[in-house]
């Protein structure tokens, strides 16, 4: 079993925090994994992505080939579309509905939703609303992770353990906000399918 996922968003939206949680959960479950990421100039408000590959056997390529991603997890709808060419014919797209508009030619958001829904399986999560409900708009990334967790070959408690580890230095309140954001995202996805 090899499970390929693409994490997408805009620099500053917490893509690497999502990657941290999945990586640690994968290690805890004894899986092999490789996860590429973006640093430096591209992080400044630009499109960012990470390729993340989980496997029961050893893997070597840090990049996912075109057409072989099982899932696109995006914290921004336009960014979800950017990596469609990587998606398997039966791939899944989980994206936040909330657009991050920092370019002048951002397309009408309804057009973006329509395109995303062309994927065989797709879910647009109300990440902004649910993050606010959890206690902070900054937790949108954990809402989307929660929604995607329904599909990922990892156990729920491991996601939660490492969300706690990730935020522990910031205090209990931040930890609980992010755990709640994860739960709300997960419930939203379960309600949908």
């Amino acid at each position, binding site marked *: 079993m090899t499970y390929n996922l693409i994490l997408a968003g805009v620099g500053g939206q917490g893509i690497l925090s999502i990657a941290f949680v999945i990586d640690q959960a994968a*290690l805890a479950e004894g899986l092999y994994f490789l996860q*590429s990421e973006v*640093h430096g100039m591209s992080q400044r408000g630009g*499109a960012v992505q990470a390729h993340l590959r989980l496997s029961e056997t050893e893997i*070597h390529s840090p990049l996912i080939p075109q057409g072989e991603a099982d899932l696109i997890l995006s914290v921004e709808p336009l960014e979800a579309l950017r990596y469609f*060419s990587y998606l398997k014919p039966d791939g899944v797209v989980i994206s936040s509905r909330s657009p991050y508009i920092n370019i002048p030619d*951002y397309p009408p958001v309804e057009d973006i939703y329509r395109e995303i829904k062309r994927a065989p399986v797709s879910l647009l999560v109300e990440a902004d609303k649910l993050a606010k409900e959890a206690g902070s708009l900054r937790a949108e990334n954990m809402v989307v992770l929660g929604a995607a967790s329904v599909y990922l070959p990892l156990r729920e408690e491991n996601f939660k353990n490492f969300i706690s580890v990730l935020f522990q230095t910031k205090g209990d309140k931040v930890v609980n906000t992010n755990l709640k954001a994860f739960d709300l995202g997960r419930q939203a996805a379960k309600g949908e399918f």
Partner: protein
Amino acid sequence: MEKIILLGDEAVALGAIHSGLNAGYSYPGTPASEVMEFLIRQSDGGRKYVAKWCVNEKVAMEEALGASYAGQRAMVSFKHVGLNVAADPFINAAVTGANGGLVVVSADDPGFHSSQNEQDSRYYADFARVLCLEPASHQEAYDLTREAFDLSEKFGLPVMIRLVTRLAHSRAPVVIREAAKKNRDLKYGYSPDWTLLPANARHRYQVLLKLQEQLKDYAEGCLFNRFSPAQNGSRLGVVATGLAFSYFQEIYPRLDFGPAFLKISTYPFPEKKLLELIDQVDEIIVIEEGYPFVERFIRGVAGIPGKIIKGKMDGTIPASGELTPEIVAGALGLSAKTGLSTGNFQLPARPPQLCSGCPHGDTFQALNEALHGYDRANVFSDIGCYTLGALPPYKAIQTCVCMGASVSMAKGGAEAGVYPSVAVIGDSTFTHSGLTPLLDAVYSNTDMTVIILDNGTVAMTGAQPSFGTGEPLDRMLVGLGVNKDHLKVINPLPKNHQLNTGIIREELAYHGLSVIIARRECIQILGDKKRS
């Protein structure tokens, strides 16, 4: 067997720590910064070993060399273009030789992710005639760094570790081994080998030349170089170096023919093993990240009679850009899968841009307005977040070449007749390589204006410390001889726009050297402070 998750950069850093590292030095630069970030985090505030950011890569290389002469294990790390800055001590360190293990980590950036070129550090190692090790995986990044320290002491030479972005900036579990004991006592004293007077240098260079045979022997026996003969009568041979081998390894089980292959992880590369492979096959495919370094050696001028050689030089693999699984699969005759298409939907690009509230944006607006009406102006700039000022909406700067070049180019431009001739440079880039050209401009009182964007940090690479910021920067400038009447400090805020534009305009009009410091803290740093 302990497994921990590490970036490629961090695997190198941990390999160094477990080799009994005494001192690490670096200047930030993508994709190498995380080597030093990790060393600093693990150093217990410098109590376990020295781990320091330096003012530039040349200084970092020389500090590491000084530690090596003192018998200590030292490592210096930087991005590939940082090696240009450190080239002088790097090349000459190969002639003097190392005492304590000296490892030079150079991280190349195929694909221009965050760099102005995609130069290949293997040429530098070859040029200096030192050993270069190129890991194919995170595990090898850790293991080869440990090997590098031993080899450096065995041969008495610096050893290079060459990384590429995709390895430096990906994470994977790494199995770690027991750390070597740190028992490097200071070895006081000196060697005439370190004084490169021509007579000593001639002698040392002969030593270096003689060592080449030993380096080749090492390469031949090194277990990280792996030859596998052809299966099922295949007449194809694959030569893959470093990370390129990992792409090949992933595809290998999908091939219904069993090509011979040679994995290369050292330079010099194992020539005998390569000849063995060539002997078995009719066609050779060379896969490498960066330049066609090995491919050029194999092809020579005349090629190999009766053999077909494929790689970057015949277009089988693109000559530029990083490797991808599709490129490697395509070179081996496999067709790529196609994913979903977004059809006619136009996807706008989302390039990086200055943060909302960034001080540089306010400076660029004021500068653009101050320059209005001049038709022979040039704004020479430099390397940092502010290079994004070349893009809309600002379009405020016109050059980005190498660290510190803005100041020297503004002087050259001014002397060629450009007016106003403006240099725009960040505080850390200024102390890296802008001080010396500014001294040149002071000496000539060149008719130019230097704007130093002092945001107090090395912002683009993750907020490392700046060596010349705030009041000490002002004193540095006065010390260099900048005329106090034309040394101005502005606070780049929207509310100060008119005032700042006026000050810049005044200094542009002054026919002599002016320096304007645009001083406001990086908005990212300010945000982090407010949150914590």
